[in-house]
């Protein structure tokens, strides 16, 4: 057995005349936490649905644990695969406890210790019917179900939507802990900060095609800082400044730019400026960095 947990090869899915994804290929190794990022309609869910065997690929192959996966036999890999999505439908007439117990039986697991650990982390309301639960509590139940069988591979589609900030934090801690245990995680998320926070690798999808596959740490470096300086004097140039915008105001010349160089050089440059009226330095958000990436890839 190789250390490739998931292999997607030239995956294409067409719905009638529309091609949702085209020639999507990637491999995920054991223990990787991979963020699958793209705008709405980029093809994230179609790729995930194909991986899980919910839909049948028009072309291409999916291998999970070295076995070719199709809608007919996908259930075999699900014995070692957990899944949760942000909009996951759960059986509303069951209580959270009943649903988790039913799901646990399908994995043929009698030991509840892992389930109890997860209940302790998320503290969901298990005695209530799922139909009466808030969205956040339903999401907790879905996440517990995804991790309770200690799967080797966890596929998550917008997993933390609906969770409050505290629970979102607990979820990220769980992902880190799972990574230490050697679990492989493939997750799409709209919260890009959490992708950067926990993922080791990011796959960027745009208009149904993979446009970039890179280590997550590159994203924070590429993000850089936004620097804004207001001065009445002419300013010296700064190496590494990009996207410079200059505006004359009553307070002086207002200059803003993106800086991707070293912090020490920026500090030295700011220290040497005469009679500053105002200045600010802020980290670029991951969203800005991704937008930047998107623009670069499309150009």
């Amino acid at each position, binding site marked *: 057995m190789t250390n490739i947990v998931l292999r997607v090869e030239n995956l294409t899915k067409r719905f009638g005349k529309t091609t949702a994804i085209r020639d999507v290929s990637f491999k995920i190794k054991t223990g990787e936490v991979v963020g699958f990022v793209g705008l709405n309609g980029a093809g994230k869910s179609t790729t995930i649905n194909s991986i899980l065997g919910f839909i049948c690929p028009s072309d291409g192959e999916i291998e999970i644990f070295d076995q070719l996966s199709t809608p007919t036999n996908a259930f075999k890999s699900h014995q070692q695969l957990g899944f949760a999505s942000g909009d996951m439908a759960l059986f509303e007439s069951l209580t959270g406890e009943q649903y988790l117990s039913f799901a646990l*039986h399908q994995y043929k697991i009698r030991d509840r210790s892992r389930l109890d650990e997860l209940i302790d982390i998320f503290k969901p309301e298990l005695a209530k019917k799922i139909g009466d639960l808030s969205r956040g509590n339903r999401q907790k139940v879905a996440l517990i179900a995804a991790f309770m069988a200690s799967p080797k591979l966890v596929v998550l589609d917008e997993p933390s939507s609906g969770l409050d900030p505290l629970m979102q934090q607990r979820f990220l801690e769980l992902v880190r802990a799972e990574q230490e245990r050697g679990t492989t995680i493939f997750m799409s998320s709209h919260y890009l900060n959490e992708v950067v926070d926990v993922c080791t690798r990011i796959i960027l999808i745009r208009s149904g095609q993979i446009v970039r596959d890179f280590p997550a740490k590159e994203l924070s470096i590429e993000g850089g800082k936004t620097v804004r300086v207001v001065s009445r004097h002419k300013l010296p140039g700064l190496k590494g400044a990009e996207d410079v915008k200059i505006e004359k105001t009553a307070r002086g010349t207002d200059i803003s730019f993106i800086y991707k160089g070293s912090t020490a050089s920026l500090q030295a440059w700011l220290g040497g400026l005469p009679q500053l009226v105002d200045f600010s330095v802020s980290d670029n958000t991951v969203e800005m960095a991704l937008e930047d990436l998107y623009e670069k890839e499309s150009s």
Partner: protein
Amino acid sequence: MRNLFLKTIYDKRWFIFGWSLGMAFFAYIMVIFYPTFNSGGLVQSMLKGMPKEWQGIIGNLSDLTHLSTYLASQMFNIRMPMFISVMAIILAGGLTAGEEDRGLLRTLSALPLSRGRIFIHKWLAAVAISAITMVALIIGTYIGSWQIGQSIEFKTLMILSGLLLLMTVALMSVIFAIGTATGRRSLTTAVGTIIAVVSFVLTTFAASVDWLKSWDRLSIFHYYPAPDIARGTVKLSDWAVYAVVIVAVLVVSFVIFRRRDLNG
């Protein structure tokens, strides 16, 4: 709730309770009205005055002389199949396309459950629910007959209920098959309703409208001749038709369901 079959039965517990109660009550009411129908007088003269075309709905007046033939013509014939068709459409449509519409089929498929197992457990649960309501119908019939001090032959009631169950399972399997093969709720409900209504019209009016007689074979109710069964005529071919329909639609839909894209 160790498996999907038991979970489905649990999920549908209020549906089972409601329909069982309704069937038992309907049977009970029909039985306790028997003395009124049987005593001649106003009801019989009213029935005699009805047009010939309505004979299919009213039934043969000679059938009113015995409880078993009365029940066969007034309850098991047409009325109960129509009543049960509504149940079959709601049940089979809800378990298949209804759950798929709500995304629940994907939730089940994310577990280590094969599509084949999902298909079989859901179908078996629908059959079990139909059987439970049929038992309620038998209980209601017996309670009513006990109250009016009349007896109904056990064998006749079992054959009437047994073939009615098979007819229900056949109709339910057709709707189930459309639901699992397409995942489209509106289509499933529409086809189920069309089958029930067209069958009702064909079987009801074929008795008195000559040109409809040849079309009556297309009706799912045609193979459930309740008055004939009560008079002692049991045709194995009727049972065979339902069995063939069940097997055929299930095999085709099973093959499609295992390979198709899931909605939701």
